[in-house]
């Protein structure tokens, strides 16, 4: 069922067994699981089925740390959430991502990778991915053209990725959600407060507000916040009527440890023998390629050198040309144009293909010699990288996000070390040579103006067994609050080397299973 919350009378009370706040990848993944449940699910979405400038403006915020992408363009505030413009890159997190690594402060998940495996397998079809296979050999057997570089596997390994079409949750799952017997979707239902009980041990209800000032209350047995890292933190911090520091923030952790993936051009690879070196394994023909590899350092090498987990992807190019970071490559206007093109039935060339740099379209030779090396690396967990509340308020009267993205020396040293080790291995095997980009040759504290993430917002309500070190426990329940949970990448204690979507869907399914045991 679907109701536009604006059509309800002021002061309406919405009730259900489970309330999910946010209809993005996490919220919809959970809601789908309850479609035929005997219990009732309330799914609240702040936006509607289409993007609305006024809704997007609620996501605008103050940026005070490292330069960042406009916040109102980085995430989408409508049904389907940011899957409305994601690129579909999926891979699993590595076992080392879950471990406590002495050289990475604040690392370690309270769960192991193996615990996520069954949920990864369930997440694959939701994202329209292939089989749950991320072993290079599996893909090599199916395509003789795929050939990993003959590098020492004890040092460098091919980390496999799969590509979602990409699945637009707002389109693909709209009917399933609207027609689900047990799920009631409310659009234009912006939650402006999580109301704690007097003892601050449970959530009593939620306050939902409209632009015209109307308010409704939502009452449920359990609540799941699934409205992305920044908005989850904002909502918890702004819910400070009873808990003055915000809900779940007894230890000043809500909003901290914000993490991104560092996506930035970092080097060049020049092949020694391009005619005899197969590169298809590492290349992507967007929309066609089902799986490809990126170059990753093994857990042992990371440990030996005390560095973070990350990969390099290969992009054909020419030496000396300017290469753009992710944020540079996809400015907000282009993102918007691409969404409009998709919505209009993909008539004509995509705005993205028109804007591609000459190297990406023109360099189609059979045996390319030069590849740009693009970093994708986890950011070290950092309590000073954080989301707080701005003094400025949005049109709903909520304090806006104040965003202070901070990086550490470990982040930069890890990227440089990665490329030095990759360069040594390329040289040792005679495959080619690696060049570091200029920005990596300076000290470890300075970052280039084109520093970029991948619009991957993680952390802010990190998972830890100890309430003094994490906002949620291993079951994603907010410490100290009996019926409040967080879904999505907001709970990640570390960012991993892979994009977050597959893992956040897997974690959401895991949370859904857990809630079923709690509520039935």
């Amino acid at each position, binding site marked *: 069922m679907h109701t536009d919350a604006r059509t309800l009378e002021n002061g309406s009370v919405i009730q259900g067994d489970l309330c999910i706040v946010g209809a993005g990848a996490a919220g919809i993944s959970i809601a789908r699981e309850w479609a035929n449940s005997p219990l009732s699910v309330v799914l609240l979405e702040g936006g509607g089925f289409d993007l609305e400038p006024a809704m997007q403006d609620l996501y605008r915020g103050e940026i005070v740390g490292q330069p960042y992408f406009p916040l109102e363009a980085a995430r989408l505030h409508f049904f389907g959430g940011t899957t409305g413009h994601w690129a579909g890159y999926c891979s699993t997190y590595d076992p080392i991502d879950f471990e406590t690594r002495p050289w990475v402060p604040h690392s370690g998940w309270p769960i192991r990778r193996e615990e996520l495996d069954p949920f990864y397998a369930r997440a694959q079809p939701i994202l329209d991915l292939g089989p749950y296979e991320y072993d290079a050999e599996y893909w090599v057997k199916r395509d003789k053209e795929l050939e990993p570089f003959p590098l020492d596997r004890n040092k460098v390994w091919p980390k496999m990725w799969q590509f979602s079409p990409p699945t637009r949750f707002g389109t693909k799952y709209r009917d399933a959600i609207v027609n689900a017997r047990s799920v009631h979707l409310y659009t234009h239902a912006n939650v402006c407060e999580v109301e704690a009980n007097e003892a601050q041990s449970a959530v009593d209800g939620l306050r939902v507000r409209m632009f015209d000032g109307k308010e409704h209350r939502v009452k449920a047995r359990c609540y799941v916040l699934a409205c992305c890292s920044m908005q989850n933190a904002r909502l918890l911090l702004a819910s400070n009527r009873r808990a003055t520091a915000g809900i779940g923030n007894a230890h000043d952790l809500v909003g901290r440890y914000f993490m991104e993936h560092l996506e930035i051009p970092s080097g060049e690879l020049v092949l020694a023998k391009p005619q005899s070196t197969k590169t298809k394994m590492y290349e992507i023909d967007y929309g066609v390629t089902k799986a490809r590899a990126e170059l990753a350092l093994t857990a042992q090498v990371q440990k030996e050198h005390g560095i973070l987990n990350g990969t390099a992807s290969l992009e054909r190019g020419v030496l000396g040309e300017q290469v753009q970071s992710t944020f540079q490559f996809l400015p907000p206007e282009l993102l918007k144009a691409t969404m409009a093109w998709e919505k209009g039935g993909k008539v004509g060339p995509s705005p993205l293909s028109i804007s591609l740099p000459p190297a990406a379209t023109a360099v189609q030779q059979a045996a390319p010699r030069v590849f740009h090396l693009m970093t994708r690396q986890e950011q070290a967990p950092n309590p000073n990288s954080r989301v707080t509340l701005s003094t400025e308020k949005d049109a709903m009267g909520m304090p806006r996000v104040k965003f202070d993205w901070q990086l550490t020396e470990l982040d930069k040293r890890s990227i440089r070390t990665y490329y*030095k080790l990759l360069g040594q291995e390329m040289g040792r095997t005679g495959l080619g040579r*690696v060049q*570091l980009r200029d920005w990596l040759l300076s000290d470890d504290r300075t970052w280039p103006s084109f520093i970029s993430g991948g619009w991957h917002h993680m952390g802010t309500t990190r998972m830890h067994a100890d309430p003094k070190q994490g906002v949620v426990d291993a079951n994603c329940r907010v410490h100290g609050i009996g019926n409040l949970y967080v879904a999505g990448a907001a709970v990640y204690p570390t960012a991993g080397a892979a994009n977050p979507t597959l893992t956040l869907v897997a974690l959401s399914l895991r949370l859904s299973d857990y809630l079923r045991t709690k509520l039935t």
Partner: protein
Amino acid sequence: MTLDRRRFLQLAATGMVAGLTTSACAQDTSEHARELNKPALLEMLGPERTREIGTQYRAAMPSENTAAALRDAISTSRHRQFPWILHKSIEEQVRDDFAAGRTVVVSGWILSETEARQCALYSLSV
């Protein structure tokens, strides 16, 4: 001429190694002189970038700013590596450098010490 380690030790025991070493080195010098001036990077990066790398290397290493000093450094490095009597091509020496972590960063390029010196030699020759 190639020689494995066991054979080398046998010869050493019979006192024949000194002569062999001299012979190998002489051959080494003549065979590799041309190789030295033609780094593999030429094909990968082209003459301009190779020359630039060489120039930068010499600027960073003033003690190796002559052809003789560079050849000497390459040769010294070559014979420092065990088994030093083996006939190694420059390509092998370069790979050995990478394997042993004997690398330098010049103009951002991660290079073996040997090939960086080759670039320097090249930059002096053009």
